[in-house]
């Protein structure tokens, strides 16, 4: 069984006056409802240009449905005005500005639940990693 651990730390001494924020959390990424670790992953890096419009980062598949997948995505652009917009199917999740990252669960609750990204205001180099349970493989031609 593979072990995938994700840890986050958030800190700020001045966002809440007189009350510093310090959050730390760690989780071991398991398959849905089990104590067995996720066993599949893919990671990569690319650059998305504004001309490419909305692009699928990853399609949802029936084999991955209702899973406990996890997604890491980082916008490696350096211009503060360039951002990656992340959509789930036809719903905007949010904007990853230069240097921002996200870590979310992705349950692929139906096969239209794809991850879509779009570069706005300029080209965005990005890196990603997806940890998952399974996916539907495409037949060779």
């Amino acid at each position: 069984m593979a072990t995938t651990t994700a840890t986050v730390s958030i800190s700020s001494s001045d966002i809440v006056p007189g009350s510093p924020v310090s959050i730390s959390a760690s989780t071991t990424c398991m398959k849905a409802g089990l104590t067995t670790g996720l066993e599949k992953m893919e990671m990569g890096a690319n650059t998305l240009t504004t001309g490419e419009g909305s692009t699928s980062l990853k399609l949802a598949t029936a084999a991955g449905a209702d899973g406990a997948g996890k997604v890491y995505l980082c916008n490696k652009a350096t211009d503060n005005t360039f951002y990656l917009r992340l959509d789930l199917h036809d719903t905007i999740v949010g904007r990853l500005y230069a240097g921002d990252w996200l870590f979310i669960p992705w349950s692929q609750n139906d096969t239209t639940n794809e991850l879509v990204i779009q570069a706005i205001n300029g080209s965005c180099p990005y890196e990603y990693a997806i940890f998952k349970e399974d996916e539907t493989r495409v037949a060779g031609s």
Partner: protein
Amino acid sequence: MATINASVNISSDIMSYPVSISKSMTMKKAGTCNGLELANGLSSKKFTATTQVDLYAYDTNTTTSGGANKVYIRNTGSDKAEYFKVTLADTTDAVEEIGRLYGGDWMLFPWEAASADHDIMVQPSTTEIMTIEYMVFYE
């Protein structure tokens, strides 16, 4: 201007070689080098029903649409069989599920807060007591 730092570390032995991802960010306002200035404070909610509810609702008074808002959510439980379904409201499908936070799982994501149809909603998987903690950083 406040300074909010967030870092993530992911390690895995799924591959035959170690996978290690480490990244830090300073939360800034959209398109600027100025830090986010507002937060709701670290909060927690206890649930004893499987009803889907707003965890954090879009509010024109406190939320900047199209900004660089960030949301942290964690299932504080330890049971890997129990989860919170996290969804965003959607104008066409009513709800778009992001994913499921099992015991101990956390997430940190940007929130567009485009309209009142983009509330952050959660739904426990069981009527057993479940607790979620969350914090929203916004412009």
